[in-house]
């Protein structure tokens, strides 16, 4: 189940614009490396500031990357004039996240009403070899008629 027709013809620009406004993703140096309707990959290169005490990528960061990929995979099939929020996620850590780069891959499993279910996986890439580090299930909600801007567009914020 990966064929999802985009309801918004401008989904690519809308998702990339939203991603560019996620300050946390910019802070960690993440890149939206793949986007198609219902599918999103986000990758981040290694840097010492992203590691835990053993030198692996920090687990919270690994989860955050998967969450962001799942959010944008969902957002890519949402209608115009809407935004996306995470309702819940559950992840299992499979292996230490050791590598030059992390890549999170998320895809929509199904959507019913406002609720979108996704699977997400994160791989650590070391010298071209991928290790499966995390797998998870994500639930996203479509907020139709709400702005994707800061504070859901409710108030102006200083940039």
């Amino acid at each position, binding site marked *: *189940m990966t064929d999802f027709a985009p309801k918004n013809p401008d989904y690519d620009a809308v998702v990339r614009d939203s991603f560019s406004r996620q300050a946390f993703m910019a802070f960690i140096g993440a890149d939206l490396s793949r986007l198609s309707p219902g599918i999103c990959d986000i990758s981040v290169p290694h840097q010492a500031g992203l590691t835990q005490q053993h030198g692996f990528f920090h687990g919270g960061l690994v989860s955050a990357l998967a969450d962001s990929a799942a959010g944008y995979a969902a957002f890519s099939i949402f209608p115009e004039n809407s935004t996306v929020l995470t309702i819940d996620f*559950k992840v*299992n850590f*499979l*292996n230490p996240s050791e590598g030059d780069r992390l890549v999170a891959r998320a895809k929509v*499993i*199904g959507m*019913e009403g406002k609720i979108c*279910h996704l*699977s997400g996986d994160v791989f650590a890439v070391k010298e071209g070899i991928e290790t*499966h580090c995390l*797998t*998870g*299930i994500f*639930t996203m909600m479509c907020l139709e008629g709400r702005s994707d801007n800061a504070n859901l567009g409710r108030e102006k914020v200083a940039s």
Partner: protein
Amino acid sequence: MSKLQDLEPYRHLASLFDSQKFMRHLGVEITHLADGHCELTLGFDESWSEANGSFSNGIVGSLAENVACAAAATLTQPGEQFLTVEYKMNLLGSSKGDRLLAVGDIIKSGKSLKIVRSNVYAINGSDRVHCACAIVTLAAT
């Protein structure tokens, strides 16, 4: 449908499934086994129907968990035993159908932990609706 007894080389698992009285009570059948993989099938019965005629979500969850245990058992060494420590399931759609098919696939088979992804489908004639997905964690006892 094949019975477990026919599903070589997993004959040694027969006693494990025989001991699972709840699955026997429901009438769950093992319809496919391979290394790290299991499929279970359950026909619909009025006695576990929800108000709208679909399978009870509790039954869907039981199958998602049990198929994960069975998939894990295919990769368990003699003397090892794994028990479910947690699972999380998303209900994706209606579980209305004349039978349920639960499919379990091992994602990681470790010495201490086994992580299994389960999917449950409602089968109605030739239609197949994906009604639930789950991730199940099993730990060695």
